[in-house]
């Protein structure tokens, strides 16, 4: 088992409010891991630390054995751009860009030529059932369509790890199910590791395993615990 991302005794507070109080987590290559927990438990904060968006006050974050928490903002930004993909609850598409340009964005930021980036982005529209929506702006898309565009954007650069924070949180059950089906099929096809934050058990059930964050610490739920 190759470890891709790891948190070791991570502590982080927002002002006087502790969010993580010694969180430990190991994510293996190809893992589809769900992080669950009640609101305010620290699950999204943990994802942001693992993804190099936040830097913990103490503890270690590692990606491929390399200390992410010791990197400067510029290096972390490059790491996020080069190796990670992201899907957030509300898609967060750039409203000024077309759907196709939104999907191509990670490639453009990585220096891929515009024509090549747009062509690669175009291939994801067919895969995710989005044909015909290439020229639409985010305001012209339904919630489910926007989230599939966001998923395509998260996957287009073939990231090593996809971080998904409540990716179906704003969708109805059926649409959310469709997005999760596409997410699982796509990451399996491309061997992408996934860290998925959700408070919904039906979404967590798409993962290989799950952990629960409670009071800023990670509790593992394993099949062994059941036996």
């Amino acid at each position, binding site marked *: 088992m190759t470890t891709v991302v790891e948190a070791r005794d991570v502590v982080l507070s927002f002002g006087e409010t502790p969010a993580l109080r010694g969180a430990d987590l190991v994510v293996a290559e190809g893992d589809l891991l769900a992080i669950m927990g*009640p609101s305010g438990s620290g699950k999204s904060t943990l994802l942001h630390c693992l993804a190099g968006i936040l830097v913990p006050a103490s503890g270690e974050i590692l990606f491929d054995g390399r200390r992410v928490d010791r990197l400067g903002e510029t290096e972390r930004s490059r790491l996020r751009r080069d190796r990670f993909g992201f899907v957030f609850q509300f898609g967060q598409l750039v409203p000024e860009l077309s759907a196709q340009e939104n999907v191509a964005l990670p490639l453009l930021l990585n220096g891929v030529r515009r024509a090549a980036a747009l062509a690669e982005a175009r291939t994801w529209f067919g895969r995710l059932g989005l044909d015909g929506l290439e020229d639409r702006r985010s305001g012209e898309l339904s919630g489910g369509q926007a989230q599939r565009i966001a998923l395509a954007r998260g996957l287009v650069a073939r990231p090593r790890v996809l971080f998904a924070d409540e990716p179906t949180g704003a969708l109805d059950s059926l649409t959310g199910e469709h997005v999760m*089906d596409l997410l699982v099929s796509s990451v399996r096809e491309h061997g992408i590791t996934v860290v998925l934050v959700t408070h919904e*058990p039906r979404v*967590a*059930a798409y993962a290989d395993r*799950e952990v629960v964050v409670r009071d800023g610490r990670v509790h593992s739920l394993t*099949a062994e615990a*059941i036996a």
Partner: protein
Amino acid sequence: MTVPLTLLGLLERAPRHGYDLKRDYDAYFGRGKPLSFGQVYSTLSRLARDGRVVISDLEPGEGPDRKRYVITDLGATEVDAWLSEPVAAEPHLQTVLFAKVTLALMLGRDAEAYLDTQRAAHLQRMRELTEIKRSGGLVDALLADHGLFHLEADLRWIDLTAARLDVLAEEVRS
């Protein structure tokens, strides 16, 4: 209780031999729990005795499979009434989960660890059902969804109970 009415419902689609009826039942409703031929024929006999089905013709040959069953007006009325009535919304106030948590708290055991173990067991089953949904047809998905929503309801209860354990412990120990 539902087997006779389900068989009647299948007969309303079209008259059937017992063998075909069993095959239809197992395909849609018997997932992991197929009907035995004995149960099919004894149920059909009772339905015939009570006037809910009649035997339309006896084809030449051996065995009960040669009988062709047809639903009567009485049987159709019962199917219609059954399909219109809601199933009792059972409150399940005395579940095993509830009993285990309460007893664990009374005895000063680790109720939180039990709830974590139960959560893992529920999620494992939800994973299995999700896989059935992803790999099966729409009928499988419909069945799996029913199980998934019930398990999810249990999980919500587990989460809420976990958040209330301290207060609950005080109440049951006093």
